[in-house]
């Protein structure tokens, strides 16, 4: 992980900017396999509460997770612009996350990204590993791996 960051620091990175609630988040484009419209999610009983269920993505079964539930935000409201971002991770396979809206793709140079300090009190900050400055706007950058990680059960 640390190595990745060091290596990545020298290059400009592309992020997909999405809206969740009132905030803008960036997802490293190298992890994004696909973006699909909201579709029927089949509920799976007896699983973690933040899993909305599974969808059929061209014949493949893809689990879909609510990032809002995981970040302790108010529950999702599905609209015309709601999208499912399909992430693809080397050894873990595919996973969908629900976002309110997909805005654009931005390219950020290393000097446009500020690291954020870890704050144990703020559960949201656990998923963020940097803040990108794109013009006037601020974009919280997701740490893709921590989105996937199981939260420690208290």
């Amino acid at each position, binding site marked *: 992980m640390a190595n990745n960051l060091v290596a990545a620091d020298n290059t400009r990175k592309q992020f997909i900017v999405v809206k969740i609630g009132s905030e803008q988040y960036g997802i490293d484009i190298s992890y994004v396999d696909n973006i699909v419209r909201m579709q*029927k999610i*089949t*509920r*799976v*009983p*007896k*699983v*973690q509460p933040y*899993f909305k269920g*599974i*969808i*059929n993505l061209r*014949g*493949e*079964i*893809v*689990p879909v*997770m609510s990032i809002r539930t995981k970040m302790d935000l108010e529950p999702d409201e599905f609209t015309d612009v709601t999208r499912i971002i399909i992430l693809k991770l080397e050894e*873990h*396979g*595919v*996973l969908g996350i629900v976002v309110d809206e997909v805005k654009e793709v931005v390219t950020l140079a290393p000097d446009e990204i500020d690291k954020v300090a870890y704050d144990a009190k703020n559960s949201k900050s656990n998923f963020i590993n940097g803040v990108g400055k794109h013009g006037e706007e601020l974009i919280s950058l997701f740490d893709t791996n921590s989105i*996937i990680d*199981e939260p420690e059960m208290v």
Partner: protein
Amino acid sequence: MDVSQYLEIFIDETNGHLQNLSDCIMTLEKEPENMDTINEIFRAAHSLKGMAGTMGFKRMQRLTHDMENVFQEVRSGNMSVTSGLVDVLFQCLDAIEAYLDNVKESSDEGTDDNEAIIQELNEILAAGTGNTLPEKTEKVPVKQPGDEKHPKKYLDIEFSEKEKEELREAESKGMNIYGITVFIQEECLLKAARAFLVFKAVEDYGNIIAYNPSSQDIEDEKFGIDFSFYLVSEEGLEKILEVSRAVSEIEEVVGEKLKYSELTAAAEKKEAAQAAEQEAKAAEAKTEEKAVPAAPAQTKQAPAAAKKTNGGKPVTNRTVRVDIEKLDALMNQVSELIIAKNSLVSIGSSSDGGTGGASSQAFHEQIEYLERITTGLHESVMKVRMVPIESVVQKFPRMIRDLSKKLDKKMELFMTGEDTELDRTVVDQIGDPLQHLLRNSADHGLESTEVRRKRGKPEVGSIHLNAFQEGNNVIIEVSDDGNGIDTETVKEKAIERGLITPEQGETMTQKEIIDFLFMPSFSMAKKISDISGRGVGLDVVKSNIEALGGDVEVKSVLGEGSKFIVRLPLTLAIIQALMVEVRGEKYAISLGSIETIEEISPDEIKFVQAKEVIHIRGIVIPLIRLDQLLDCEPEDKERESLTVIIVRKGDKVAGLIVDELNGQQEIVIKSLGKYINNSSKIISGATVLGDGEVALILDVNTLF
């Protein structure tokens, strides 16, 4: 080139020979006089020796060489087969197998010399030949007739200037020049590999100067059954011939020492060649006479081997070896095709309404055609993945034989249905559980010989392994005619362990008591033996089989024997399922576990121990409301009639209340992925329906 590219062939062939040897020795134990079997063993041992030798596995070569020696004597009638010999032979097989395992892992045979076994073999050899039966020694080995069949084709080689130069140089250094022609058995399938092994063997002793056909042609297998070459070496001719003959499937090797002057003369003058041939014939005859004992054995063995292979194996190899991963990929694609087909079917049936007419009918016909094709394709792919259980069960007779010796009980194994086929992945994992059940029968099931005699049973206990197909399942039964399960003792043990109270014990059925045997660390063996009794036993069998989607059942009559019935699904990837709906959510239930479907009215529901049950045809069936189990929203009002699916696992039944039935369908099982923490295991997977919707697959086995 190096030997490693032939390692796979070596491993495959050695495995084949070992299984063959094992079968033959089993036969030999029963019919010690069977000449065909003895010849077969000799041949297999000889081939093993040759292969091990050329691959450079000296220890394995030595062991097989000694085995071959013993059978050489048995063949010629100088000694007879004793049970002691059979025991040692089995030890040899185990030792060779150990070598082979080492080879598989590290491409090296390991360092175990197995001196003890070799010594035993030699002792038996010495003892056996000591008391030779005089009337049997009259068998005279048949001499290989002349050389008409094996002409010295090496004389036809024409040398280039460069090769002549090399030959002259070698001779001036005091090396010998040999002309050699090798004849490969006609049935040989890998002639190029054999040729390579011959070259590899002789190159340990010298350099090959010229080839006929060219080395490239030999490598590409562009030659008949023979090839020739010239070798310069410091070693004697006999040694060279011996190592070449040691390669398996080589019929004969002819060769002689030649002078450079003779060679050039031969190439230039035909008459000279003829003369050289005459001379060579004489030389050959001489080497025949003073050849080491192995040489006549060689010539005798070759025709026998040829006869055998003609009868047994098909002349051409009609099989291909395919990586299981490729089959999995193919299977996945067929699964996709079935999903696509299902969606076409559902479009077809939904657009059925008003359109009608000829085009619609043609559409339906084509869909039906497509359905037939996909079903056929699916079956074919499944068949490709199916392998007979033979590969697993063929080692069992040997195991039972060993157990019989070890436990000092007389027993015999009878197997039927070895050709029953199962999915490859199932077959790979069924070996251990079956082995365990057989050991269990041998150790705990069968009584000792004395007890059997007292009880008036035949002294030799019998264990049966029967496999057969039943609908979408394969049943494998392991039964014995031993003591059966003493449920009273099991009950006592359970009470002793504090698993149940004596009062509970009173009311338990025989089935429930037998189920204790499948609990972890519940061993009934009075003392721990090598064979069983460590408490890791039937519970592992049960969990292994359940992991494959199967189950185990036991039937036992005290004093008469017990029978373990293993039920396995034919396939793991595609199943027939009943589609049901609960609050609008779709679920699939495997048809295999469904008994019946009942319509009941809510007032038929009774309560037993505060749990809902129904009483149908004399059976009390506990009810499970799927909507509650699956955390669905509760319904406002009770329905007027309820649909209950009666499912069965072994002897237990339960009724699942569902809202609606959606018919039966062929579904493709897909995993839910790793992210979802599906610890309750109620949902065993998901499937994509014809309209693209996703349905979850309920594993009813987890409900009991």
